[in-house]
């Protein structure tokens, strides 16, 4: 009970810190980095939500792009309000996920990852075909903004939106639905023998996860106002997986920590920007060999090391 209260208090402190942060940060650029981090936290967490069913999607940025382009096109071509197109971006992604979810639900593990990878690449190709609307290689510009041009309102809006999405996802995972999905991940044979409809749950979790990916994509579009061909490419999908794995796949907070660390740290050492891929792969190796539970599992691991060290000494 005490540890629960301690956790609640520390989360509250972090939240207060984040709310007060813009008072101290005068740099618009740093504020921009924080806003992008919030958006990507939604995306990475939704990727982990799908991963609780034992499936790792390598085309998650492809799903983000569906939300992004749907929202952008609806707002730009049809003049709909960005407040409406933001949830519509999420919904459209969810509908696509439901449609592809049926064949996807029959694939497991590496086969799912491979097909989702090709889905991500395929979405980029579709993007090229409809270049009249999407802008193709040259990209899409002048997307209507959500909240004007000042950074500050965006900061608070995306802080709130991220919090809301995380609350939804954490509820999803802790109630019986999450338990059932984790059961399917461990043994789909046993799960179906107690009456759990494996395919339906796989489609469900993919659609819910993709809904949030779509929200993140639409939020990205209405904030940066520019979508380019490279924004949601394969590397973006793989980056999401790296954020998730570095943060720790076994804990809900993992992707939040992973995204925050890997997106904000490179900005603090901007002079070394060319070396980012090397640093990323270095961190990745470190995580795989030293911290299988990721950064989120680090406190527990340190406690464990200390206790074993004391026993030896």
């Amino acid at each position, binding site marked *: 009970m005490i540890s629960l209260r301690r956790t609640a208090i520390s989360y509250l402190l972090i939240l207060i810190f984040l709310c007060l942060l813009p008072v101290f940060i005068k740099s618009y650029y740093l504020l921009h980095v924080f806003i992008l981090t919030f958006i990507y936290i939604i995306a990475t967490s939704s990727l982990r939500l799908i991963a609780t069913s034992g499936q790792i999607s390598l085309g998650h940025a492809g799903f983000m792009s569906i939300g992004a382009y749907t929202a952008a096109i609806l707002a730009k071509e049809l003049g709909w309000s960005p407040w409406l197109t933001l949830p519509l971006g999420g919904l459209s992604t969810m509908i696509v996920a439901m449609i592809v979810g049926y064949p996807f639900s029959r694939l497991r593990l590496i086969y799912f990852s491979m097909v989702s990878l090709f889905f991500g690449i395929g979405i980029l190709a579709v993007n090229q075909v409809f270049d009249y609307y999407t802008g193709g290689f040259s990209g899409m510009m002048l997307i209507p903004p959500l909240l004007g041009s000042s950074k500050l309102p965006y900061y608070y809006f995306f802080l709130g939106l991220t919090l809301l999405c995380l609350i939804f996802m954490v509820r999803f995972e802790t109630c019986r639905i999450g338990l*059932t999905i984790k059961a399917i991940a461990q043994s789909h044979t046993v799960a179906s023998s107690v*009456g759990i409809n494996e395919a339906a749950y796989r489609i469900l979790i993919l659609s819910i996860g993709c809904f949030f990916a779509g929200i993140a994509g639409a939020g990205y579009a209405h904030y940066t106002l520019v979508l380019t061909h490279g924004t949601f490419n394969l590397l973006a999908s793989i980056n999401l997986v790296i954020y998730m794995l570095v943060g720790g796949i076994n804990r809900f907070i993992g992707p939040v920590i992973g995204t925050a660390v890997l997106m904000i740290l490179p900005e603090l050492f901007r002079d070394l920007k060319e070396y980012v891929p090397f640093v990323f792969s270095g961190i990745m190796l470190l995580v795989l060999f030293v911290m299988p539970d990721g950064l989120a599992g680090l406190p527990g691991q340190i406690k464990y090391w200390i206790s074993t060290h004391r026993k030896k000494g």
Partner: protein
Amino acid sequence: MLLEVIRLTKYFGGLAAIEDLDIQIDEGGIVGLIGPNGAGKTTFFNLANGFIRPTSGEVRYKGKEITGMKPHKIARLGIARSFQLVPLFGEFTTLQNIIVSCYLHPRSSLWRAFFNTATYQRNEKYCLEHSLEILELVGLDKVKDELAQNLPHGYQKMLGIARALAIKPQLMMLDEPLAGMNRDEVTFTMKAIEEISDQGVTILVVEHNMRILDLCKKVFVINFGRKIAEGSPEDVRQNDEVIRAYLGDGYAASNQ
């Protein structure tokens, strides 16, 4: 007639795993299904539970055809099963294994679960109580907070039975529940199986261990996918063909 199997056949390539198998199981009691290694017992279970589709033939449950239905739909009709291998959700605790298996009774809708309604909370409370009852019945209540993968083999087997019980089945199919157990565990498990049967659950049990015959009212013997004998345990023990299948021709002759 609870379960009726009519001329069930399954070929794996050119190999007949099950051929023209006819089995009738009446309601109540414990029914045994025995046979040497590779006789097709587990294949029969997988066919009856919808994990694999038969080449031909029919499986009927309470007069309704269930051949080729999906496993989760068959489970919903009230047929539970335990597995010979991979019998559990290893990363869950013993208790969680049962709670997640209480998926059908009572069943909460997704909305109710997500929004934590009063009905959902009541259902979850019932699930917890029911799961604890089941664990007590099979004697696993003392390890309820252990991770299932860390349990000793005998306990894991029991957990498989407990999990099958959680769906409130009318027919329970147990695939070698005694395999790999020591003497005490066998005695204990057999007592638990008997208790479950006393609660009105019909049990079909596949086993190598002949001690199970003491519990059975009726036994089917299969070999090479064909039924070679059926009847009371005593009849089957005397049956020439059964002795031949298990021990070879020489023993069958000396028995006469």
